[in-house]
């Protein structure tokens, strides 16, 4: 895949399929330490992105990301809607009006996305949120992008690998942000649904990029 507007659109379609496939898993994770809606909400939002891309894919990768952002903001709700919405919005702003993204641009976009999530949600590493998947992902992406001749697929694969590990690390954590924090110590022993969905999204994008 080349990281043009159409390439990003295809990657988002792949992400939508991944979330649809893992909808029940995400609901179940959220049922354990939250309110059982994360998979439903995210699935509704991603499906809405696919529909929004249907009439015509916007001109640039940035415009596609912006459409994704506004769709998430107006269709998902809950905590994840504004957080993921902000992530995509910051990424869109970061990449600007170029017609194709290179490895460095993707890494920068991911960093901007994480910063957006942290700016909105105020979570830091270790709070047992999607930040625990996204922060290592951004770092790994930057590192991969620094490697001579790295392509977008390599950057996203590194990010997805790191996100998967980061997500796993939330199992042992006690939540300090989001709904799971109400549980206190009882939140430990469970995978954070948002961290899991972040890992799923990045994996789908990485695979689409190959």
């Amino acid at each position, binding site marked *: 895949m080349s990281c043009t507007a159409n390439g990003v659109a295809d990657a988002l379609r792949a992400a939508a399929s991944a979330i649809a496939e893992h909808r029940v898993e995400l*609901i179940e994770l959220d049922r354990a330490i939250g309110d*059982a809606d994360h998979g*439903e909400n995210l699935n509704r939002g991603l499906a809405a992105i696919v529909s929004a891309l249907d009439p015509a894919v916007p001109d640039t990768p940035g415009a596609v990301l912006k459409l994704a952002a506004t769709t998430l903001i*107006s269709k998902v*709700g809950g*905590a994840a*809607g504004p*957080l993921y919405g902000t992530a995509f919005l910051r990424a869109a702003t970061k990449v600007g009006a170029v017609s194709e993204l290179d490895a460095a641009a993707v890494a920068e976009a991911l960093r901007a996305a994480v910063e957006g999530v942290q700016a909105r*949600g105020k979570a830091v590493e270790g709070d047992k949120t999607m930040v625990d998947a996204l922060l290592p992902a951004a770092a790994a992406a930057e590192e991969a992008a620094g490697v001579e001749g790295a392509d977008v697929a390599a950057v996203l694969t590194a990010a997805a690998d790191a996100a998967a590990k980061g997500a796993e690390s939330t199992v042992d954590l006690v939540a300090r942000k989001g*709904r799971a924090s109400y549980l206190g110590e009882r939140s430990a022993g469970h995978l954070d649904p948002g961290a899991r969905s972040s890992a799923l999204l990045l994996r789908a994008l990485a695979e689409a990029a190959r």
Partner: protein
Amino acid sequence: MKKIINDPADVVTESLRGFAAAHADLVRVQYEPDVVVRADAPVAGKVAIISGGGSGHEPLHAGFVGPGMLDAAVPGAVFTSPTPDAVQAAVTATTGEAGALLIVKNYTGDVLNFETAGELAAAEGLDVRSVVIDDDVAVADSTFTAGRRGVGGTVLLEKITGAAAARGDSLDAVEALARKVIGQVRSIGVALTAPTVPHAGEPSFELADDEIEFGIGIHGEPGRERIKLEPADALVARMVDAVVEDLPFTSGDRVLLFTNSMGGTPQLELYLAHGIAERLLAERGITVARRLVGPYITSLEMQGISLTLLKLDDELAELWDAPVETAALRWRA
């Protein structure tokens, strides 16, 4: 899962259709985004009072739309806070020169989505303020949590600010009043059974036959602590202690006592619990001057109750007594 529904994805919209048909004298309902608006909105010169949140807590919020209370309610998907565009639609339908107050329950999702909506409204030159209610004493209010949740106090806040707006208070005054109420209202909840979210299809948590969740929220989040079921006298005492000692409420205080059913608890048990709470407060020298008993902020079919105490003064009592005409609360002065 046993529910009287069609497709789980359509539950909220289909339910709103029934609500609209039942209460056409009080409200009109807009769809996509879904908003419930006072039938005669916008009311010229009046501060608009708007609230919203995930569905599944009915009658909160749509049941409180009408003269003397809310101008609009914004129902999200079940247990999911509504999106900013829906809140914006509510603002557009109700808000004029006098501005609007958004009543936001303290959950990450609600706070973030209403925050964005507030920014959108400001961009349109409207004076829209937000207050965040966080009355649940079950959650430690520390940097280690998302902060206390907004629960039963929300109902009282909506009634009292609604009355203030109805008598013509300015947005400054209504906002200050709201902060005062938030400062002196406290709640605690308990669950005997779990709710089942339609799209999830399974109960939100599992409880043994002799277990209850103490310090439950209203979204099927497990409670703070799992304890053994105990007789009503002991359970209500535990709840009264938690609420009273938090603010604290002390001898000589005049309060409003709100005994709320989480949905599945029958009235027989609810009034029984209310009677015990009245007795325990009297023993502490606290005067119950007003009361509300019923299922007003629920968690689908969850069995359980919550107790909310609001410290009253003459002004708050007067605003509480002021006429209200909504689907769920209705009285005259």
